[in-house]
């Protein structure tokens, strides 16, 4: 029943896509987004219902479309339902946000038809139950999002972003295609049921892990396959950026879980080591690159890379625990990963919505030209502040809970018998701790530079609060950030069946622990209660403020800033995003980015300005992509000669080719 509803929702999305092309009037924008909102809301309700209330197990359906001998298989199990909740929650909020934000779109017909198609694609990937449907929907999702990235293709850099995205997406799909090919084996059973029944050898499943990691990693932004992500995600309109960063990367994570945990059979212990290593490096490198970034949306995109790293750390731990038959620990690590999937989709969408509101109000994404928006856009500022606190893993918000669960999983890992894991896990734990602390630094910078201080440009001074639709969408996520943070037990219990589907066990029920405490393993070991913390902090601060205002003093006098006696009226004397990140750049930059500073100070008497230039290098690009780029260019240059030959030359080539083929044929026989 639920599966049929979801399929009808997908069909409705697809049906609403062409309307924007036919409808030429201004009604197309509200119609498309309102339709998408309604459909996503129904799908969201269905997904939540099937996760919470539906009987455990899977519903399958065989549709008579697609390849004649295979058809299209779809399936709804708790794992898919959990990810459908994430997908459709993000979609519904993005549609709501689009109702307001979409009005500022100059060329809506470049966006509107692809928006519902993109939503349909993401839903279908999660529902797919055979390799053909999966890859087709995956590619559909990639291409429709590529079209959305290219919506503003005339802006500088966007065309390049779209091109790199398209390349990476195709390479990733090819790798998944090969992976499914290996899984299906010579028999060619491409339905997931056939793949599950077909046991493959250890070397084949290792190759499947590599291909799955490559394919899903290139879509979700795993280092070193992340280079397209910070280019492409910010290039799209902001609600699309929210969908790509918050939701599409999660669909890729779903693909990874489905292939590695469900389809490729029992894991070997070293799978966990590989995934952990990639996760740890991704988390640390993502946040460091975000710190160096001054473009608000690109900073958020780099944080997506960081958070994908955190999710993959959880997945790696789950693999390691599962391979060593430690079901409770595997359930804990998997819960942490899926909880973080949910959390990241919530706060990253919220932050992208906020940056979109800033972009609409000021036309700026560069933090060096923002500032002081807390006065002109107080509600957006509040929402962005909550999102920033949540992504920085600060209690009592939701980001902290999933990181806390990941830490608890790491603390269980000394029981793993393999030496490599014994060395790797604490190192990855340190990387995780480091990236959490750096994320807080980065969001002090992002919020402080954009919303606090004095306006650094005319546009920032004249900003105004954004529309009611956008604010409502942000408000929903603000509430979710807090609710999932102070009542995590309900989320953990709701995710239980999905965790069960992935690793075979789930955490003990948390809602019965009393007073909303969560106890993942045992009470003497660890427990956390966000609800009590939130109530205590709120009570203490309100009480302190009340007592002081009532009995001590409540007088306020406004005056010029003190600034040690030397306040400068020019906003240019404030700290900038670049100067804020300078200490971090000195600590990490010289190694990670080969940072170089060139300082030019004019000679005495010269009235010219002093200049400082910072040169950062992306070592991943230099080491990996630049050589590939060079090889392709050199090969293409070489082949280019064949395009400008005389007719005699071509005839000689044709004759030579013919003779060669004949010779080969002769030898063959």
């Amino acid at each position, binding site marked *: 029943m639920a599966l049929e509803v979801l399929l009808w929702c997908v069909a409705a999305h697809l049906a609403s896509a062409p309307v924007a092309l036919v409808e030429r009037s201004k009604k197309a924008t509200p119609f498309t987004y309102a339709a998408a909102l309604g459909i996503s809301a129904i799908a969201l309700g269905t997904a939540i219902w099937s996760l919470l209330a539906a009987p455990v197990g899977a519903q399958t359906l065989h549709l008579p479309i697609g390849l004649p001998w295979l058809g299209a298989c779809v399936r709804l199990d708790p794992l898919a339902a959990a990810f459908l909740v994430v997908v459709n929650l993000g979609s519904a909020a993005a549609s709501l946000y689009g109702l307001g934000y979409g009005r500022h779109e100059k060329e809506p017909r470049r966006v509107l038809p692809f928006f519902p198609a993109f939503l349909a694609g993401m839903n279908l990937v999660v529902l797919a139950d055979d390799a053909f449907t999966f890859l087709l929907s995956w590619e559909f999702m990639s291409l429709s999002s590529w079209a959305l990235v290219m919506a503003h293709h005339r802006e500088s850099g966007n065309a390049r972003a779209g091109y790199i995205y398209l390349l990476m997406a195709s390479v990733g799909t090819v790798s998944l295609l090969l992976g499914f090919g290996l899984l299906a084996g010579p028999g060619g059973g491409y339905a997931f049921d056939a793949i599950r029944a077909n046991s493959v050898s250890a070397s084949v499943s290792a190759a499947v892990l590599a291909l799955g990691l490559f394919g899903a990693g290139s879509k979700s932004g795993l280092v070193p396959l992340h280079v397209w992500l910070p280019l492409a995600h910010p290039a799209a309109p902001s609600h699309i950026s929210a969908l790509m960063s918050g939701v599409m990367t999660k669909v890729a994570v779903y693909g990874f879980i489905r292939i590695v945990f469900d389809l490729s059979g029992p894991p070997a212990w070293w799978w966990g080591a590989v995934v952990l290593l990639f996760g740890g490096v991704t988390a640390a490198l993502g946040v460091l690159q975000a710190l160096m970034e001054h473009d608000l949306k690109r900073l958020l995109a780099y944080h997506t890379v960081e958070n994908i790293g955190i999710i993959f750390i959880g997945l790696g731990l789950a693999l390691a625990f599962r391979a060593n038959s430690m079901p409770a620990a595997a359930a804990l690590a998997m819960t942490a990963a899926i909880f973080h999937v949910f959390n990241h989709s919530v706060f990253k969408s919220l932050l992208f919505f906020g940056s979109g509101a800033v972009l609409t109000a000021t036309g700026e994404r560069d933090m060096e030209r923002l500032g002081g928006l807390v006065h002109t856009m107080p509600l957006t500022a509040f929402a962005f502040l909550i999102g920033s606190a949540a992504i920085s893993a600060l209690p009592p918000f939701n980001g902290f809970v999933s990181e*806390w669960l990941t830490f608890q999983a790491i603390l269980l890992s000394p029981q793993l018998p393999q030496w490599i894991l014994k060395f790797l896990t604490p190192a990855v734990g340190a990387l995780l701790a480091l990236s959490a602390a750096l994320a807080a630094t980065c969001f002090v910078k992002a919020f402080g530079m954009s919303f606090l201080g004095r306006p650094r440009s005319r546009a920032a001074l004249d900003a105004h609060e954004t529309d009611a639709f956008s604010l409502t969408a942000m408000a929903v996520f603000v509430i979710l950030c807090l609710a999932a943070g102070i009542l995590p037990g309900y989320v953990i219990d709701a995710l239980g069946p999905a965790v069960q589907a992935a690793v075979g066990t789930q955490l003990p029920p948390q809602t019965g622990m009393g007073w909303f405490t969560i106890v993942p393993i045992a009470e003497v*070991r660890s427990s956390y209660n966000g609800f009590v913390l939130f109530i205590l902090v709120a009570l203490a601060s309100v009480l302190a403020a009340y007592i*002081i205002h009532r009995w001590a003093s409540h007088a*306020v006098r406004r*005056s010029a800033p003190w600034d040690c006696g030397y306040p400068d009226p020019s906003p240019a004397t404030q700290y900038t995003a670049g100067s804020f990140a300078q200490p971090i750049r000195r600590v990490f930059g010289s190694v990670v980015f080969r940072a170089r500073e060139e300082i030019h100070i004019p000679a005495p008497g010269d009235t010219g300005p002093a200049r400082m230039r910072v040169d950062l290098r992306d070592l991943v690009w230099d080491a990996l992509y630049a050589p590939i780029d060079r090889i392709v260019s050199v090969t293409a240059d070489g082949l280019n000669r064949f395009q400008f030959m005389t007719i005699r030359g071509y005839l000689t080539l044709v004759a030579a080719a013919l003779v060669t083929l004949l010779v080969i044929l002769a030898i063959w026989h």
Partner: protein
Amino acid sequence: MVDALVQLGQLLLVLLIAPLLTGYVRKIKAHLVRRRGPRVIQPYRDLLKLLRKEVVLAENASWVFRVAPYIIFATTWIAVALVPTFATGLVLSGAADFIAIVALLGSARFMLALAGLDVGTSFGGIGSSREMMIASLAEPALLMVVFTVSLLAGSTQLSSVASFIQGPEVGLRVSLAMALVGLVMVAIAENARIPVDNPATHLELTMVHEAMILEYSGRHLAVIEAAASLKLLLYLSVIACVFAPWGIAVAGDSLENYAISLLLYGLKLAAGGFLLAVFETAIAKMRVFRVPDFLGAALMLGLLATLLLFVSRNA
């Protein structure tokens, strides 16, 4: 019922003695350089004076600036109240383990750094930027210390850690020694003490903590100062609870045991404060860009201690 009373008592106790600890450390430092120094109750007088004064608010200060002091104060206060100081078995200790206490301090720091940026002065910016740089090394170092003690005790709950350390199976351990050194280094950095920062300075180019709160006055400054005192108390209490938990009262103890543990707690704080003052007097402040080396060493110590425990349970 007793647990609830102990919890309530601790909430009030930490609030009452935090300024005393600050005054005491100042007094010792003054004596060490042969000054008489202000009386130990001077911080109370300062707080009362500041509380009664009007707030002089910069013209473009926003609500973030006005709300931040109370959140910083409340978060730090609650964090200290959840550390077992003189008694374990607090009613609320299940709400936050060691990791959550570290994260609560992170929330307070986040708000403080934002408040430093709110008015848009260059000193506020310099303070926030440097504070976050210090924190982004100190917090992971602290978490590594947390990992070490939790791996040993098999729990991230501070009360379980305290009872484990008192148990017979601890002995002398390399990893614990490393963790202690790391924790002390983090405590020095996080409390803006010499050699990382100087709480008494207003020399523009070296200040970190003071630069962030430069624009604060009146009651706002008072609660921020109170929060700073509470944070010092918190770190000393954590060190006492994890590395010297002897005599700490457990649930169901008799009244005189509580009195003894309270007395012992006071002695531990006095010893810790004395050592801090001696250390601060004996050492010179380091350049800001040497701080990462200092904290990097703390991080490495913590990581090494954790690694040792992953490799061998007896390290």
